[in-house]
């Protein structure tokens, strides 16, 4: 007996429609990942018994069930893995120390990089992490030169992980 009142195609259409309504750019990116399709191997039997069958690679479209899983994997990357990546980077950088010169140096003074005295600070402290969106070589100006990466509460990541798991179960048609 089927466990769903909807088909894989209906499920995919509802997911993409809601995603498009929420964020068009993300929807376009996920649609593009689906439309790339997949590579399969095809075999063409040889008409000559002395020759081997011809095997070639072909790109085919995903089934609706496969496309649903592709979309959910992409959403998992956005809503679970990216925040985990930010948390991991924040944890690693918190352990990093920053070397601050202990003596003020003037331009005319000769300097030896090896002997410059520095004090190490900041270990165990949360650091600000930003992504540079305005590159050094860029002539055109972007709205913001940097984008901050902010840590998200673990509970929220877990909620999203649960939401993805729930959706994967609801789009599992293997026993229908």
């Amino acid at each position, binding site marked *: 007996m089927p466990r769903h009142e909807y088909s894989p195609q209906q499920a995919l259409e509802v997911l993409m429609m*809601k995603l498009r309504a929420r964020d068009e750019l993300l929807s376009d990116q996920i649609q*593009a990942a689906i439309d790339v399709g997949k590579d399969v191997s095809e075999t063409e039997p040889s008409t000559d018994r002395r020759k081997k069958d011809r095997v070639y690679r072909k790109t085919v479209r995903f089934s609706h069930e496969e496309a649903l899983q592709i979309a959910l994997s992409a959403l998992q990357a956005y809503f679970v893995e990216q925040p985990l990546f930010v948390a991991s980077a924040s944890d690693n950088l918190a352990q990093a120390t920053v070397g601050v010169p202990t003596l003020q140096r003037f331009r005319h003074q000769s300097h030896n990089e090896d002997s410059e005295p520095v004090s190490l600070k900041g270990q165990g402290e949360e650091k600000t992490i930003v992504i540079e969106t305005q590159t050094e070589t860029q002539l055109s100006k972007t709205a913001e030169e940097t*984008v901050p990466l902010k840590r998200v509460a673990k509970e929220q990541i877990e909620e999203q992980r649960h939401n993805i798991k729930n959706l994967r179960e609801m789009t599992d048609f293997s026993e229908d």
Partner: protein
Amino acid sequence: MATLQDLETAIDALLDHPLGDSQYQLNRRVEAKAYEAYDGNVPGNCCLGLAPAGRLRP
């Protein structure tokens, strides 16, 4: 049996989650930039994982 309404509720829970807002913003401001950089033949961003491999052009 799961209904279409159940599915819609589950999708809403994911897309409308409070965590979503910051992720949508990050996507708009950084991912879009990565694609733009890739179009300008700066493959570094893609190598850093900012552009999904599925979008790489030959």
